């Protein structure tokens, strides 16, 4: 979609904040993937002789209350945070996409019922929903992905459905019907490719939100369980040292903040780049 449309790439690059954010996310992801070879190794390596150390050449982000290297834990935590953020959005999309496509396509009473149901789910704040689900499912990475992912389903259904509605009345859909395409072919070959742009944009922004939600659960001790390195859990474990060794909190806090911001900027950049109003026809 982007490949055929180089003006869109140009516009994305012209957007400084988005371009920098994208580079940041790519570097972060690469480093997280390479974590075993670029760090000293074990994120859970205790060293009780060096607890709550400040920044140094050996420990660039210092050590925590158990003497673990914070930089190593941040990188391993990146894996968990990105995995839970991206995983949750994928899980949410996997549920919302078929429902939104179907509801918007068939319309009528079915659509009305689905939308009322979505409205009802909207009454719960997303984080409360995730919290309630984790309370039921239990902690752990998979359950965090499911719980946070499920909380993105209502807004994503709305998003997908509104995309379908804006495309459904296009002439080329009627043309496809007149040619003899089945409904499923029309949805998959004609409606989906033409609604994917805004869905990808929004999904990117949601990754930021799901990272926060997953970190929030980790902070409360309901997410990925210690001793696993996870940004939210690192914040939670460090809260006793906020005055004595603030870097134990501020480092993971900053990474959460900057990463979420980066996803938002990339989403914004994508939106501007793909906006049909600015896309040369």
């Amino acid at each position, binding site marked *: *979609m982007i490949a*055929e449309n180089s003006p869109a790439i140009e516009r994305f690059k012209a957007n400084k904040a988005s371009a920098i954010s994208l580079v940041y996310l790519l570097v972060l992801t690469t480093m997280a993937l390479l974590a075993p070879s670029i760090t000293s190794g074990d994120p859970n390596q205790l060293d009780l002789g060096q607890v709550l150390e400040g920044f140094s050449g050996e420990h660039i982000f210092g050590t925590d209350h158990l003497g673990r290297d914070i930089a190593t834990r941040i990188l391993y935590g990146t894996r968990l945070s990105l995995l839970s953020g991206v995983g949750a959005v994928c899980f949410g999309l996997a549920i919302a996409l078929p429902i939104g496509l179907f509801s918007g396509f068939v319309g009528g*009473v079915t659509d*009305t019922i689905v939308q009322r149901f979505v409205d009802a789910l909207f009454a719960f704040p997303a984080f409360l929903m995730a919290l309630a689900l984790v309370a039921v499912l239990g902690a752990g990475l998979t359950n965090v992905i499911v719980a946070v992912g499920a909380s993105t389903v209502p807004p994503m259904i709305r998003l997908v459905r509104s995309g379908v509605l804006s495309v459904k009345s*296009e*002439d*080329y859909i*009627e*043309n*496809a*019907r*007149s*040619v*003899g*395409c*089945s409904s499923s*072919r029309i949805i998959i*070959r*004609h409606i989906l*490719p*033409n609604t994917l742009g805004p869905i990808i944009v929004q999904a990117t922004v949601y990754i930021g939100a799901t990272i926060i939600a997953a970190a929030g659960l980790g902070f409360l001790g309901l997410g990925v369980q210690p001793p696993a390195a996870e940004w939210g859990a690192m914040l939670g474990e460090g809260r006793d040292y906020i005055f004595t060794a603030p870097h134990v909190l501020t480092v993971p806090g900053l990474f959460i903040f900057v990463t979420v911001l980066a996803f938002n900027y990339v989403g914004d950049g994508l939106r501007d780049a793909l906006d049909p109003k600015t896309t040369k*026809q």
Partner: protein
Amino acid sequence: MNHISSQEKGFRVVTDEEMREVLRVEGLTKHFAIDKRLFGQPRKWVQAVDNVTFGVRGRGTLAIVGESGSGKTTVGRTIARLLKPSSGRILFDGNDIAQIDERSLRGVRKEIQMVFQNPNASLNPRMTVRQLLCEPLIVHQWPKEEHRPRIEELLETVGLPHSYVDRYPHEFSGGQRQRIAIARALAIRPKVIIFDEPVSALDVSVQAQIIQLLDRIQADTGLASIFISHDLSVVRAISDDVVVLYLGKVMEAGPSRELFGSPRHPYTQALISAVPKMHKRKSQDARIVLKGDLPSPANPPSGCRFRTRCWKAQDICATKAPELEGDAKRHFVACHFPN
């Protein structure tokens, strides 16, 4: 569009096959609900098409003319069964397809195709020319080895170079896009194609080329077509039969020569007199200018629907709707005081 010469179809020997109607529409009616409610019956309706009857002869072109809002597109979409008629019959090859279900429509979609008014909107922007032309073949299960030769053949028919096959619609001009849309409609060799104002969204300079293309395709393939237009000079040049619609009703219908040679309905006369070149030929009557606008189809005038703009209207026109009555030359008119 006056530079297109009228084909002298009258000199050809008309065969039985050509006289046979491939498609016949009887009492076609389509009402749209305009106060859609979730439950219960709607109470307000637009009578977009009301009791329309005509036949399309084999190899022939039937033109539907009328102002915007007269129901032309709705007639076309109903025949292509993109809409279900409220009532009436659509006889195709002797079968009534007016109410058949989605499954049986498969067969109909193979035989009746439609080309839409705006080629900038009727082609999926995310599909290449190859994909656009291949899709009808895939959907109707043509053997795979025939796809490539058929696409080459289609591109040649509509006059596009084969090297364009991997491009997307936005890389083409309006005229080229309409050629692609025409090729897509032709792909599975339908018997009937409905052209809904196929050139009115195009530059005047390319309109004539597309019309010539359609004329040539029809001569080569023996296709029957319904040509929807509001451009009477084009209609006169390419149609065998004409139906004049006004607010969803047939005002006048008949063979093209008859209808243009001696129009009998005041509305048809007004339409013809608005075309400068045609008007010169019949310079004995002054140019007729219609007063007022098209009334709302949600609330059409009583009696004759044209009466609010008709200079011949009498009292009876407000109380009694004129019947569509024909003569021996198959020239039909719905007017209490026809010429």
